[in-house]
């Protein structure tokens, strides 16, 4: 059993060990959809949502796998259960709240096999968090992801107007900015 307080789990997951900038998880969406502020916000919301669901799933699966003594099935069952649960929830949202579906919908299937999601499930298991701790951890990680994505989108919107040499344009520039962002996030170390 892990005895970390909720507050320290949240700060750790969102700022100190930011999933994107310190653990390099979810780099693909980070580089891919950070072009516009609006999409970045929606993507962040969708990722946080999926993280909460998968955290819940992972907690249940882990308990089950420990009970039947089959740890080698961990990876396979995590990815299958998480992917199908997200699919189910997506159908549910589509039926219940079309507005929410339009906001998050297109991103949901994209992020089910995102490394940030699976990473979260694996980390919470290895840290032996309780159910409530896991959910706080998922919330923190999602917040951190959203924060990094929004910061990046803000910078990239400004960069549209900057004159950069042709060679630097594209992914290289985004990575350079990400490096600087990662440096600034190091200032949070020691906070958690």
């Amino acid at each position, binding site marked *: 059993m892990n005895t970390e307080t909720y507050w320290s789990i949240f700060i750790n997951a969102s700022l100190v060990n930011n999933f994107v*900038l*310190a*653990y*390099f*998880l*979810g*780099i*693909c969406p980070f*580089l891919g959809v950070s072009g516009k502020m609006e999409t970045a916000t929606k993507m962040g919301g969708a990722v946080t949502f999926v993280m909460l669901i998968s955290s819940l799933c992972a907690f249940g699966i882990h308990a089950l796998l420990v009970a039947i003594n089959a740890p*080698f099935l961990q*990876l*396979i069952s995590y*990815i*299958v259960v998480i*992917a199908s649960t997200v699919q189910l929830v997506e159908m549910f949202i589509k039926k219940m709240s079309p507005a929410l579906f339009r906001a998050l919908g297109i991103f949901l299937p994209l992020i089910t*096999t*995102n*490394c940030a*999601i*699976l*990473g979260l499930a*694996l*980390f919470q298991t*290895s840290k032996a968090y309780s159910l409530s701790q896991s959910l706080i951890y998922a919330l923190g990680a999602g917040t951190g992801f959203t924060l990094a994505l929004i910061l990046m989108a803000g910078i990239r919107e400004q960069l549209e107007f900057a004159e950069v040499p*042709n*060679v*630097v344009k*594209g*992914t*290289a*520039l985004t*990575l*350079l900015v*990400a*490096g*600087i962002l*990662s*440096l600034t996030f*190091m200032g949070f170390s020691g906070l958690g």
Partner: protein
Amino acid sequence: MSTGITKNTELKNTPSSTDEFIKGLWRENPVFVQVLGMCPVLAVSNTAQNALAMGLATAFVLLMSNILVASLRNFIPKQVRIASFILIIATFVTIVDYAIQAISVDLHKNLGAFISLIVVNCLILSRAEAFASKNNIGKSIMDALGMGLGFVFALFCLGAVRELLGNGTLFNIEVFPGSFQEWIIMILPAGGFFTLALWLLLFNFFKSKKAQV
């Protein structure tokens, strides 16, 4: 992910297997050109050894999953293909995970969760979807070998630079004289972003040079 899929639609002029092999190494290098599978590239490239181990593990999973996907391509129903690919990949990743744990506990600790995360490496899924599910086993093997080696090569490029500058060593062997001041930033997360950005710059530079000629 989309780049890998669109690029392979131009396969109509049926290139030879050697072409399939070469393209992954350079022209369609998964990291430098297609920018796929970034997470492990950045995360475990802090030393040359970690980078090499990670690259080889990924290449192995890529090879095995490409073989299996190619041989089962006529039996997997189209609607559930992605799910089946992921199951196949996850099986091999579990094997690799336990194998590395058996070979070296230290290495397993260094790579941490990133071995398990090979499952969600978009490079592997994109090769299964874009190539192995449409081609025969022989070609798929060549494709996997090329892409796998291209991935190892890219990871090694990053790992070597980061270890050399950040630690003054290469494969734990002292390279620079003792007076060398290590660039700690290179082993930190930020260094990963910077090093990859610089490699991409180099690639872009060569490409633009070539375009001018």
